[in-house]
């Protein structure tokens, strides 16, 4: 009962956030005029952004939950395994090589996957994945790739950089609904896939050996989950660039609110992260309209204090 009420509240909040997201913007369109024909172009664009925001929020936050649980590391987040810098490097290289913008998402996707494969293989030892080596390899690959990005940009000047700036700080400006659809499929399937492992995540979060004693094949499940989070993150990166904090902070906030049981935590986090990103996007385009602030900046500025407040309260609400 109690639970149902909270879910209804979260759904209502998401509905409100969506309405706000549609109405507000560089131009204010009253709710009653939203569906008029001459507003249709704006309506469509805003709707695409909102869909993107929901995908980004749920995808990144649920990936963060899974990685934090399997690595039992509170600092784990979707970009930990080098996805962001791998995608960045591929995209910058593509820009320098003069590839058309059309190929940018594909390049980013492939770059992200390539870096995960690299990190994964660096961390593998006798067929096993040790958590610490995985995190360390992720950090090392990220640092190496980031420095190559800076190197390339400083050699080849501002042209490439200009193109990349929005991307390195994230933006939900999506023009192409086909691309959005293409990304939505792996992201949604990925989230459902992670949910299938909710029970295993509960056990693994208590420690890997502990999980083996409960009949869970931890090595196989870790590999599957790393692959799923990699696909989600790589897909999202190619439409909206790198949006920090969502995959790191929202899972922690929701653990404080909903507890660590993944059967509940995952759906609650999907809703909450969607609300969070829809609102952050709204702020990013309205605060200094018509200038758009990169959404990664907003998520960080809002995420940090909200998290600190929850942490200080230190209990389930």
């Amino acid at each position: 009962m109690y639970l149902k009420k909270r879910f209804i509240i979260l759904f209502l909040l998401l509905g409100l956030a969506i309405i706000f997201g549609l109405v507000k913007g560089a131009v204010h369109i009253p709710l009653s005029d939203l569906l008029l024909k001459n507003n249709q172009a704006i309506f469509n664009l805003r709707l695409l952004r909102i869909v993107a925001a929901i995908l980004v929020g749920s995808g990144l936050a649920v990936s963060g939950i899974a990685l934090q649980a399997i690595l039992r590391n509170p600092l784990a987040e979707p970009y930990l395994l080098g996805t962001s810098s791998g995608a960045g490097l591929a995209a910058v290289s593509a820009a320098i090589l003069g590839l058309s913008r059309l190929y940018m998402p594909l390049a980013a996707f492939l770059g992200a996957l390539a870096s995960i494969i690299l990190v994964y293989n660096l961390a593998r030892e006798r067929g096993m994945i040790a958590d610490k080596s995985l995190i360390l390899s992720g950090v090392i690959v990220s640092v190496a790739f980031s420095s190559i990005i800076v190197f390339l940009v400083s050699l080849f000047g501002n042209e490439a950089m200009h193109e990349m700036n929005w991307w390195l700080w994230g933006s939900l400006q999506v023009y192409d609904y086909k691309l959005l659809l293409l990304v939505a499929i792996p992201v949604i399937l990925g989230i459902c896939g992670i949910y299938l492992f909710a029970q295993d995540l509960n056990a693994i979060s208590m420690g890997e050996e502990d999980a083996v004693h409960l009949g869970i094949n931890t090595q196989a499940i870790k590999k599957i989950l790393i692959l799923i989070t990699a696909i989600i993150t790589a897909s999202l990166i190619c439409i909206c660039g790198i949006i920090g904090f969502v995959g790191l902070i929202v899972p922690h906030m929701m653990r404080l609110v909903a507890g660590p049981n993944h059967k509940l935590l995952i759906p609650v986090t999907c809703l909450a992260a969607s609300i969070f990103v829809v609102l952050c996007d709204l702020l990013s385009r309205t605060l200094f309209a018509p200038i758009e602030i990169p959404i990664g900046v907003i998520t960080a500025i809002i995420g940090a204090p909200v998290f600190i407040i929850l942490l200080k309260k230190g209990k389930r609400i």
Partner: protein
Amino acid sequence: MSALLKINNVSGGYYKEDVIKGVSLDVEGGDFLVIIGPNGSGKTTLLRMATRVLPLRKGEIFYQDKNISAMALKEFCKRVAFVSQDISTGFSFTVMELVLMGRIPHLKRLQFEGKRDIEIATEKLFLTDTFSLKDKRIDELSAGERQRVIIARALAQEPQLLFLDEPTSHLDIGHQIQTLDLLKRLNLKNKLSIVMILHDLNLAGAYSNRIALLDKGVIFKEGTPEEVLTYQNIEAVYKTIVLVDKNPVTGKPNLLLVPGEK
């Protein structure tokens, strides 16, 4: 009848050198077997091999004549459970949530715990005297309470064989006796077979029907408490002089330590 668990000439370890070097040990149904031995003798390693955490390098282990490495892990964990010294409290599950995790081997993927699972978990909470804690978070519990909850979770797996790795090491003497009494009761009444590592030799003598004394990765001596807990065996393995007496109440061997400096 063949043994419940048959450990057949197994070797294994972590790095190049084997920690366990050719150990054979049978656990009979209804046993309360205590493994003793000095630090580094391989007690925990042996338990990790028997519960499929650590792969064997040599030998094999049979559970009711089935090679355990050929059993599905969940099938194995329906029959064999493990209780560790303590658990991580990084994720603050409630006691009930934790004990329900013991039902995982019995559930299919995406199958949520049903009424029956909650009944079983509740029964185990009562059995371990932790029902009043069921809504508390595991990081709020004392070490003694947490140990009983870990035992409740293992019991929720409904095992026939329970492994425990020094379950009393964090507990005061009151809680030590309470925990071991509980296990002895389960052993006698519910026919639960128990294999336990203990450091306290007197407790080992008091509760077990068999003791295996491990030294440098091999079994030095195995038998009844009276056969194993002799001053000769203890001195040979622990390099410590003890006097062996009888506990005046239980009649079991009672070891007295003799300080080297007076």
